[in-house]
């Protein structure tokens, strides 16, 4: 145990003495928060929407058919009650709900105007925005067709409600994304580099010749980065609360617990890389290409996964950042508790165990 503490202390000295490492470690989150502040627009296909039809008349049915025919939407025929919509959002299956009030068709016929309501899950603001725009266009089209042989024009109004994130703050979306990205980068790159550096310098040999257990070498490499990463999580959250005005709705404790799990995933990936790589440059390159890219592409943070070809959607399931991103979004923005995200947590746990096993097995006790 004392040996272990000695080692951890030494790791901290390395980190704290290296300006470059420090800069990456703590500059990165700040820079990323700023960079990703610029929201990106997305195109959407086949987003699931649900209809709450209190009217059940010809007009509501016709609009429903129009929506269904569009390539943008996949209509769920489930007729949920108004209050069940929010539950649907929380499950994450449904992105948009269309509510036809009881007298929708009748109003249109008698008063020449009627109002339908669109409720969007705005925890992903880009997606919500795009979806509501598409939907309004469909309704407008329908209205135009309807008015072709009408003396008095009929008007269908669309009232849009954004749930969870009424101001469509992009930050809601990118803060969890930045967290996933920063943790992945810092943990994978830093651990792999710090282990490979010892190989390069020759100190790894000295460590392996000492009675200090190789598995402890790994653990003592992991612990400082785990701690520093949790500090990173804290600083991103502080930035988000005090600079971006974005509160954490759910349990902060749960958020840290899930982050710890994700950090362990990343640390084991870093370890896996360090087993293969012989130089720090290689370690850095593999970390960049092998981790950063999939994380950016497949976490759902920059590009909606719903839009991707099926193959890529399957691939995305193997990317740990995707699950972590969903989890953080659910806790931070939707304020959900563990009972709502246990499935994602379990998947992330599974992936973590897998990588941890593989990398521990691959870490050679002897060098040859």
């Amino acid at each position, binding site marked *: 145990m*004392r*040996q272990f503490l000695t*080692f951890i202390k030494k790791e901290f000295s*390395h980190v704290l003495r290296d300006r470059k490492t420090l800069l990456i470690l703590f500059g990165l989150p700040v820079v990323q928060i700023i960079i990703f502040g610029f929201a990106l627009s997305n195109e959407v296909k086949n987003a699931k929407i649900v209809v709450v039809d209190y009217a059940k008349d010809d007009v509501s049915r016709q609009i429903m058919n129009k929506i269904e025919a569009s390539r943008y939407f996949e209509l769920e025929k489930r007729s949920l009650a108004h209050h069940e919509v929010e539950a649907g959002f929380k499950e994450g299956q449904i992105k948009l709900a269309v509510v036809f009030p009881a007298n929708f068709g009748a109003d249109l016929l008698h008063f020449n105007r009627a109002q339908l309501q669109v409720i969007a899950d705005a925890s992903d603001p880009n997606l919500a925005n795009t979806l509501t725009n598409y939907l309004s266009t469909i309704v407008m089209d329908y209205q135009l067709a309807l008015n072709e042989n009408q003396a008095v024009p009929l008007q269908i109004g669309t009232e849009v409600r954004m749930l969870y994130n009424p101001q469509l703050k992009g930050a809601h979306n990118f803060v969890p994304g930045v967290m996933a990205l920063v943790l992945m980068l810092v943990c994978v790159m830093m651990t792999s580099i710090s282990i490979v550096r010892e190989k390069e310098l020759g100190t790894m040999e000295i460590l392996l010749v000492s009675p200090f257990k190789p598995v402890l070498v790994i653990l003592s490499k992991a612990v400082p980065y785990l701690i520093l990463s949790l500090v990173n999580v804290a600083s991103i959250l502080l930035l988000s609360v005090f600079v971006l005005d974005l509160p954490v709705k759910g349990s902060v404790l749960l958020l840290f617990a899930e982050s710890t799990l994700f950090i362990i995933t990343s640390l084991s990936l870093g370890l896996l890389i360090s087993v293969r790589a012989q130089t720090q440059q290689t370690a850095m390159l593999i970390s960049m290409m092998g981790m950063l890219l999939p994380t950016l592409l497949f976490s759902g943070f920059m590009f909606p996964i719903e839009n991707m070809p099926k193959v890529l959607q399957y691939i995305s399931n193997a990317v740990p950042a995707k699950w972590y991103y969903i989890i953080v979004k659910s806790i931070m923005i939707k304020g959900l508790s563990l009972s709502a995200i246990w499935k994602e947590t379990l998947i992330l746990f599974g992936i973590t165990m897998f990588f941890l096993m593989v990398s521990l097995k691959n870490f050679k006790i*002897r*060098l040859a």
Partner: protein
Amino acid sequence: MEAVIKTDKLTKRFGDFIATNNITFEVYAGEIFGFLGANGAGKTTAMRMLTGLSTPSSGSATVAGFDVYRETERIKKNIGYMSQKFSLYEDLTVMENIRFFGGIYGLSDKAIKEKSDMLVEQLGLASEKKKLVGALPLGWKQKLSFSVAVLHDPKIVFLDEPTGGVDPLTRRQFWDLIYAATSRGVTVFVTTHYMDEAEYCNRISIMVDGSIKALDTPYNLKREFGVGSMDEVFYKLAREARRSAD
């Protein structure tokens, strides 16, 4: 005499290439054993098998009485090692390095304190002990590296070209440290390219292309080859080498 290292036909292959070929020798307790050979002869490879860093391809060996295949953990408790690459942390200070290596060898804080004070005094590093190791001249780094390798009083210390690139005066001082260690009962297994250093050893072996071609005291070897210096002994053997120097 008690043998603390025994090898029997110890061999290491890398694919088709035999780096260390059937080497058999013994090292006795308390002696300074010189392990000589040209570049690429296989010295480092042999040393890595003995320290548990690398698994032999065939043959057998014991170090401090423990088997190199099955008992590496126990071997590690009994040896010190200074690798061919300089291997202290340059971004840590002299004291931090001593504390770290003492720590992972499980020395108590008190023992570390005592030993480091003594060591720093002995090396004349008292005024530099808070300096980063990276800022020290090479000779001092090597001396420090050796002192750290024997900090935990190992039975055997393995030194892989400990004086490479160091000036003659510093090399003399380095050997004074080695003698001081042997007087405390440490057995020294050392590789070197300097023939004057070979003369300091109790016994030496000379490796050529992976095999041991000669093994005896410097005196006997010179007599056997009918020459006046170790240089000439080495030259006679090494010119048969086929492996190009790397």
